[in-house]
């Protein structure tokens, strides 16, 4: 058997420091106005944390009343919001087997940190309510329950480029016929534990939180088509970040006049590996304006690419995701 598939993005959604929609994310990036940065110390001796949080919701949406969402972490709320935006508000996945692929780096870090603090204090009093929410796949599980989809559901842990690996797995599931539609969702939440960790590394980055989601199908004939996903080039002892970036770039079939959504963040140290890859003038870098989104970063790039294609800014878009330690991976999307 030989199967050739066309895979389409039928919808997309985002939550970011810019707000609770893909549109607000794109507006901030296109206006090239960096959002205000909050600076705090948790105690006097602690390092200064620099971050951009997701603004409060203007009104509580109906989906937040779902029983499974009563005590969930912020990452879960972000993930569900972005996913429902991608689905166009359709809460019931219906009879179609819908796969869920969730990507993250830090998971539900606020609950993990709180729970372990309780364990250190007194394990006998550590909360059984918190612990289940600390598992990496809790957000994906809640999302599956909200959508009512019993199909395959993966949580993939990885660096800031991981969202594109999620897309790759989704394409595979659709081609196999394992699911007829698939959501790829990433989410992260801010906590001092991860923000102070970020500040241990070079680059003077601003931490951020939020989510990104795309809804994929291989049945549609219009929308945004996925034309290419490169291999994931593993960094490590034998392959530097720069070498991985160059290998990824060599695999991309760059369409003429494509817009590029890259992973540069405004740090000369970190951006050096990607700077020379895309000489075209039409390059957009969400992390420069939103901050370091950890496992959601490449998701924001993907959502931005969808918005740009939808708004007619170009016929095709390249996503260049150079992670901070694991992989370099790229993708090409096109307006069909």
């Amino acid at each position, binding site marked *: 058997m030989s199967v050739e598939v066309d895979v389409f993005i039928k919808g997309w959604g985002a939550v970011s420091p810019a707000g609770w929609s893909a549109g607000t994310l794109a507006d901030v990036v296109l206006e090239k106005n960096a959002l205000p940065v909050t600076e705090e110390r948790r105690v006097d001796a602690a390092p200064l944390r620099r971050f951009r949080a997701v603004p409060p919701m203007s009104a509580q949406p109906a989906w937040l009343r779902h029983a499974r969402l009563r005590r969930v972490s912020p990452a879960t709320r972000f993930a569900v919001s972005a996913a429902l935006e991608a689905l166009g508000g359709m809460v019931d996945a219906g009879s179609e087997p819908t796969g869920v692929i969730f990507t993250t780096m830090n998971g539900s870090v606020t609950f993990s940190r709180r729970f372990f603090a309780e364990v250190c204090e007194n394990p006998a009093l550590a909360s059984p309510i918190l612990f289940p*929410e600390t598992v990496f796949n809790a957000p994906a599980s809640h999302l599956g329950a909200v959508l009512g989809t019993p199909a395959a559901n993966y949580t993939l842990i990885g660096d800031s480029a991981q969202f594109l690996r999620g897309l790759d797995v989704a394409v595979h599931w659709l081609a*196999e016929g394992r699911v007829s539609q698939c959501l790829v969702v990433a989410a992260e939440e801010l906590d001092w534990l991860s923000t102070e960790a970020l500040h241990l590394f070079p680059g003077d980055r601003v931490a951020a939180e939020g989510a990104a989601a795309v809804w994929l199908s291989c049945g549609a004939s219009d929308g945004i088509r996925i*034309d290419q996903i490169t291999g994931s080039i593993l960094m490590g002892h034998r392959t530097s970040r720069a070498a991985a970036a160059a290998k990824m770039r060599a695999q991309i079939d760059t369409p003429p006049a494509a817009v590029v959504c890259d992973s540069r963040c405004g740090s000369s140290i970190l951006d050096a590996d990607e700077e020379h890859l895309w000489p075209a003038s039409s390059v957009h870098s969400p992390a420069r304006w939103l901050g370091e989104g950890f496992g959601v970063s490449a998701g924001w790039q993907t959502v931005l690419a969808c918005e740009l294609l939808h708004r007619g800014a170009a016929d095709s878009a390249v996503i260049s995701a150079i992670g901070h330690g694991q992989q370099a991976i790229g993708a090409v999307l096109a307006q069909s």
Partner: protein
Amino acid sequence: MAWRRGDKFNGPHRVVITGAGIVTSMGHGWEVNAGGFRSGRVALRPVTVFDTSRQRVHSGGEVVMDAPLPETRLTGRQLGRLDRATTLLLHAGMEAARQAAWHDTEGESIPISLGTSAGAMALGEKYFRSKSCHPAQKKALAGLVTGYLPHTQAQLLADATGISGPVSIIANACASGANAIGHAFHLVKWGRARRAFCGGYDAIAELVFAGFDSLQALSTTTPRPFDATRDGLALGEGAAMLTLERLDDALARGATILGEAAGYGASTDLHHLTQPHPQGDAALRSMTEACAEAGVQPGEIGYLNSHGTGTPLNDAAEGLAIQRWAGDAVARVRVSSTKGSIGHLLGGAGAVEAVICLMAMRGGWLPPNVPVAQPDPVCTFDLVQSPRDAQLDCTLTNSFGFGGANATLVFRRYKA
């Protein structure tokens, strides 16, 4: 795996296992583990990796780290930074790689698919404690953060074995290891890779141990899956890795074939974050899906390695699922849980239990479910309670996790 529009997914290809590595509280390697599981040895002991004096439970399937790491390609600096979870992973990975004898991996992109629920959690715990006690501290913390990230463990595995490619780290709680193998199986089956390196691992960590205790899921007596008076599980640790490749490639190079990966099912239990659907709906779905892919009927499964944690809710739901899945054949289905012997390995469980299925098929025996004094009434299947020999052509293993992650793998004895 690179993909371009117009690329064809070709297959299905038959996929075989040509290398397996395992480390559990039974010990290091295939031989010692096969001997232990065949005889039904119980390898639970006091937990020493952290202070359990303030916990209700003090024992588990802790690995005795008495075996030196086999020679790897890691640098001295890398070796000096290995944490417990990564060390377990490397033991299993090196054994599998050695057995597979893949000598031509240089320059080839070979997918690495790993399952874990906590990765190097102990490093994360150390980082938290340092930050809490000494907020201004910076020294040595970046190394802890980097080491904690699961992709670092995958990179070390790649560096150690020379098998390198795109990394998928599936964190589907206790189904992670089975999902990782299933994912790799499908990559090879559908022509996206010619071979893959896959498995699962987890080390005992204080956060997780206290978490299961907070849920009162840990046995305060003796873990005894499928016993009517069971009172919970024991946590364990370990790792298992498999090398998968196309059958035609394995035959062409004269590789030893340990078994054939035949079916994989994955489903999501929507009932509750930590409790299974009482009737085992999602378990039924994953078993049915895996058997359909393998083209086997329940009556053809010679041995079923159950998830069988020993918690009241899990075993009852899984038992009912097995009844519904097997139908009239249920009395003939031979079932055991090996978690009474080594504890629950969480993200490593699915991979370790996959290797146990391969061992049982290769050796012609059934691992007993120990200890059981009074089987639960749900056990209308043939619960294997003592060591038994058996000719096995087809085996199945279940893995169910928090979040409703359910996965089933089916393996077949290789026949030309």
